[in-house]
């Protein structure tokens, strides 16, 4: 265990643990759009910048992203100093110019004093902030169905060749982790559509409720050795099934004893 000072308060942490984890545990609200615990820290959105220094740094301060700066003994951290807030404001101004229509960005930007971007709005903007979380999560799940293409300002998230991605199984994790909810998907009549690819949803054998896609279930069975019939019935019916089964066992044992 090491100890650091965060906003004047002494805090204990494991050595090497990322600062963002520590601050979140301490209940300090630091915005971070490109971070998700399921994937490696990325450092792309730059919103979790904090100011660090040490007693022996002669007043020199550094600005680092909390998501991937490892905790060190004796660090003195300011999560909301004037300069940090100024930097966040600058970054949010940029994001607000890129995604002027995103409610999530607008809200966060307003919180940091940018009700309206001071910069030129990107024409025909969508709400993607290009944090790449979707592609990184997809890679982490082992499907690698989508990736980023191009670089710089024209970088985009796209399936290969902009066609329905062959490796996609329709798990919609990409849409679920997207900080600005920009990846559309539809579940209609037992069919799921995402990335312009259509999937069959499994319908519960008992009640017909739709669960995950058949492709996803197949992939899970193959990769994690889960019997395929586990996916035949929905969770509601499974619970009912369990209670009935246990009930019959209890009834049977009562009969046996009486």
């Amino acid at each position, binding site marked *: 265990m090491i100890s650091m000072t965060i906003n004047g308060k002494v805090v204990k942490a494991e050595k090497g643990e990322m600062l963002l984890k520590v601050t979140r545990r301490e209940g300090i609200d630091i915005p971070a759009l490109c971070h998700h615990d399921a994937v490696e820290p990325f450092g*792309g959105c*730059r919103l979790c910048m904090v100011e660090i220094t040490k007693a022996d740094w002669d007043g020199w301060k550094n600005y680092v992203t909390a998501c991937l700066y490892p905790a060190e003994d004796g660090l003195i951290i300011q999560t909301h100093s004037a300069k940090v807030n100024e930097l966040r404001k*600058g970054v949010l101004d940029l994001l607000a110019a*890129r995604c002027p229509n995103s409610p999530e960005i607008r809200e966060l930007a307003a919180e940091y004093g940018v009700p309206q971007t001071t910069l030129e709005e990107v024409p025909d903007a969508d709400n993607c902030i*290009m944090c790449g979380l979707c592609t990184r999560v997809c890679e982490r799940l082992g499907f690698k169905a989508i990736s980023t293409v*191009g670089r*710089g300002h*024209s970088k985009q998230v796209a399936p290969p060749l902009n066609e329905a991605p062959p490796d996609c199984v329709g798990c919609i994790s990409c849409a679920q982790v997207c900080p600005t909810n920009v990846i559309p998907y539809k579940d209609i009549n037992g069919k799921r559509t995402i990335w312009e690819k259509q999937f069959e949803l499994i319908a519960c054998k008992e009640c017909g409720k739709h669960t995950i896609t058949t492709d996803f279930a197949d992939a899970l069975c193959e990769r994690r050795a889960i019997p395929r019939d586990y996916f035949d019935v929905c969770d509601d019916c499974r619970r009912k099934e369990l209670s009935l089964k246990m009930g019959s066992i209890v009834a049977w044992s009562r009969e046996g004893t009486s």
Partner: protein
Amino acid sequence: MRIENAGQLEQYRRECQARLDKQTRRLLVCCGPGCLANGSQAVSDAFKKVLRNRKIKGFKVEALKETGCHGFCEQGPLVVIEPEGIFYTRVKPAHAEKILEETIAKNKVIDKLLFRDHNNGQPITCYRDIPFYSRQQRIALRNIGQINQCDIDEYIATGGYSGMAKALTQMTPKQVIDEVTASGLRGRGGGGFPAGRKWKTAASAEDTPHYVICNGDEGDPGAFMDRAIMEGDPHSVIEGMIIAAYAVGAHEGYIYVREEYPLAVVNLQKAIEQATEYGLLGENIIGTDFTLELNISRGGGAFVCGESSALMRSVAGEVGEPRAKYVRSVLKGLYDKPTVLNNVESYACVPAIIDKGGKWFASIGTKKSTGTKAFSLVGKVRNTGLIEVPMGTTLREIIYDIGGGIQNDRPFKAVQTGGPSGGCLPEAKLDLPVDFDTLTEAGSMMGSGGMIVLDDQTCVVDLAKYFLAFLVDESCGKCVPCREGLHQLYGMAVAVSEGRATEETLEKMERLSEVVAVGSLCGLGKSGPNPFLSTVKYFRDEYLAHINDKKCPAGVCRELIRFEVIEDKCDGCMACVAACASNAITGQKKEPHVIDQELCNKCGACRTVCRRDAILVL
């Protein structure tokens, strides 16, 4: 042939030297990138053709050498005759026969091909007497232009691999590191991090294996120092890497060469094969138990891959995007293992340091920036080319003495150093000694050594716009400040150049620059606003002229200028009429021409062709 020990290497060196000594006359044809572009391959072929058909007394075909970049690219194709150092410029294939017959056979110097002094027009026979060369001191470029591009025997003859032999047989790794530390060698790629310290950290890292990487991803516009070394003297890089690998205990290394340098790849590959064949690389180098395998890794043409963490990811076969590194790459680099990454020029200096001692190297240059530094001197300077000068040489010496001043005697305006991430320095800074720290202090940086000279016809807004456009194009797009910030900065620079900006725009640009400089993930973004910041620092008036007066003082920004014919000066030669691509100029022969402002697209071609300076820029 395999060289089994250091003694054998010395023995072989003497043989090579004797062979070279037999060639009493050597004819060196520069085949560096500049001269090749000017057609030096045809010149070399012409020499070969003549020599096939005819015998020239006292001259053998082996003595005709295709060398790496000789440096004076402005005057290419260059042909040098050693040992006299007779220096022929702008040689054409048709001159080959004459040079062989007159100069080689009869010792007669061909006046017409000699370099002429800018000031007095006098021809200078020997290149060593030309100020461009006489003021230089070459360490990293020591062999380039002197020996056949990839002939290991010639490299050995000039003392090659002796530094490596000394390190491997007489020194411990620690001694090697101490020597490099004593030399004060700092990373030539731009960072200027002390090489000795980097090696020491890597050597003491417990994690294994260790790697050495050579950064040959030279992407700055106008820079070609590393290219010249990799193409012209690949063995010096390899030798430097072997020494580094020995010092840090690495047995595998990569040379990362950018996609645009195919000849460097070919020559390095050839050099690696030769060295391996001689037992100077690979398993049990010169009979010791030290082993090093070197591989060439080709870049994909992304500027950001010159950034160390992006480069390492690219070598590992991933997308070349930088990683934020609060853990240094020297400890967690390639495949997350301890990695020493140095630039081509740094490695090229290492054999000389080991050979002659760290003290010798430290005695050159300034106290904190030792040794020499290669620059590619380009732009509006008379003598463009590749140079190497001791650290601490002033900008004035470089531009006026070596560079011969500004083309057409126009006034000097600024010099841009350090590539896109660097900055512009005005005339007031001309007496600044060039080293890592002074340049950074002045708001520019050493960078890898690009030096672009600007005259009064260069608009700084246009320059900032150009570099910002380059960086916007090359930004990998991973982090927001660089991707969005540079894009916005570029947009605002365009607004300034088109007269759409206000003073508020300028303040906004400065504020945004701060966010980009502090907030970006890697060096590309962090230094991205530099082209703007340094120009606005030294040339604010020019920005304000664009903003308030809607004028471009340098006459470059198209939206703010117009071209007009000065009637009194125009003699009606029709040259501009012919040159105008948009047919905006009309007029009869021997009568003053008129420019139709509606049609004119302001390309400036008329001004370039006019011999009487009759085109005015307003």
